[in-house]
């Protein structure tokens, strides 16, 4: 399902305009982004957890030049599906 259909579906179900849904999705991105930047995970019951993970800095070889590079640390957002969702998907 692409973004447009999703927004249509949501606006129908919530009985609000598409713009409002757009704002809410934008706000959700911002909120989860802020939480994750502080290494707080967001859990949605029976769906899963959005878990930020810190990757440490490391030394890597530049594939083209063969020079050593110090790759800086970073935070990545991972999603861990809940047990119930996993079960449902497996069936």
């Amino acid at each position, binding site marked *: 399902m692409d*973004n447009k259909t999703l927004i249509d579906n949501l606006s129908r179900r919530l009985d609000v305009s598409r713009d409002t849904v757009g704002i*809410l999705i934008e706000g*959700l*991105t911002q909120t989860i982004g802020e939480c994750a930047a502080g290494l*707080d995970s967001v859990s949605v019951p029976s769906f899963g957890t959005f878990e930020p993970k810190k990757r440490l800095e490391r030394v*890597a070889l530049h594939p083209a030049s063969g020079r*050593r590079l110090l790759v800086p*640390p970073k935070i990545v957002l991972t999603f861990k599906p809940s047990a119930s969702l996993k079960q449902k998907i497996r069936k």
Partner: protein
Amino acid sequence: MNDKITITRLGAMLALATGKQKELCEDFLKELFSIVEDELLKGESIRIKGFGTFKLIEVEPRKSVNVATGEETLIPGHDKVIFVAAKELASRVNLPFEAFEAVEIADDLPTDSMDGDEDPEVELSEDSGNAVISPENADDISEASGSVVTEADKSVERQGVCNLEERVGDSQIISEDNFSHSGDMPEEDTLSENDREAELSMPEGDVSETIEPGIEAEIFEENPHSHRNKYIKGFVAGFITALIVGSIVFAAGYLLGFSFGVSKGEDMAESISPVIIETEVIPQDSVSSVYLADSVIGNGPHDEIGKESGIDQVATEPSDKIVYDTVSTTRYLTTIAQEHYGNFNLWPVIYEENEKILGHPDRIRPGTRVVVPPLSKYGIDPKDKDQIKAVKEKGNKIYARYK
């Protein structure tokens, strides 16, 4: 930090961020995730703009061994949910570390950082030991630490999330430190060095004799023992002293260009009249200890020679300030020549000046302190092309010696 945020709290935060009603936000979240779940159950992927994509990927069936029984079992293939964050969300999550970029590492980095750490520490302890801490030196240090603190503060303010930012701050402090070691310290050294030399030249000037400060100190140390102990011990000590005195005088006479006989004669006169010497010992003793410390740090095996050359400078040009510089893994003679003379081709001048403590010009030990002579001493004009050519050839000759 490391909190688990529930859906109700997320709803409240969302309401705060968007200015919509809390109930609407909670409903929105529920509906959103239920739609995503339905789509996934249908086996389809779903893309939310600016947030990310949920999709299913197939896991191949694989073999496994039951650890307890040793039986081989086949784990059947299945689907699993994958979430890929959109670029916008990923960069927002990575905001605390956004400032960093991948940095290329030089091949000689490990040794460099070690040298950089060691050297300044030694310098500092030396300074405090002799109680000649120059004001510039102290200022520089406090400035450096000040800037580190402000850097850390800034980063905390900018990102506004405590613990992570502490880490960011830490790493910035480390990098700051490195900069200060590599960038500021060498100049600092030369500055404090200059100061000390200037101060030292004063007591040296007062003293009427310009021969060895070390000799007097040694005589001063040895003499009381010989008076107190038995005659044999005194004789042995006197003999050793005479040996040391003789060797140092020989070296000094050779270096200073004095005629050997004259200086030895003077020295003999000195050792005959110890009463006179004792009055001079106190100011010179401190001088000799400073030189000893200098040479020990500058160049281990070349102690004697380093001492001599330092004294040579003070004795011959007491009025001029002597410029010192330190060779490190990132500062070569060429770097020093470029800084002091404005032309790296003039490095042989520095080499010549310090010939006695240097070996192969490309294999100078990091931390070796060299005297940077004024160009006028060799009568070289940095603008004269012919002279620079001559100096270059001198450099070639120096290299030729080590082939």
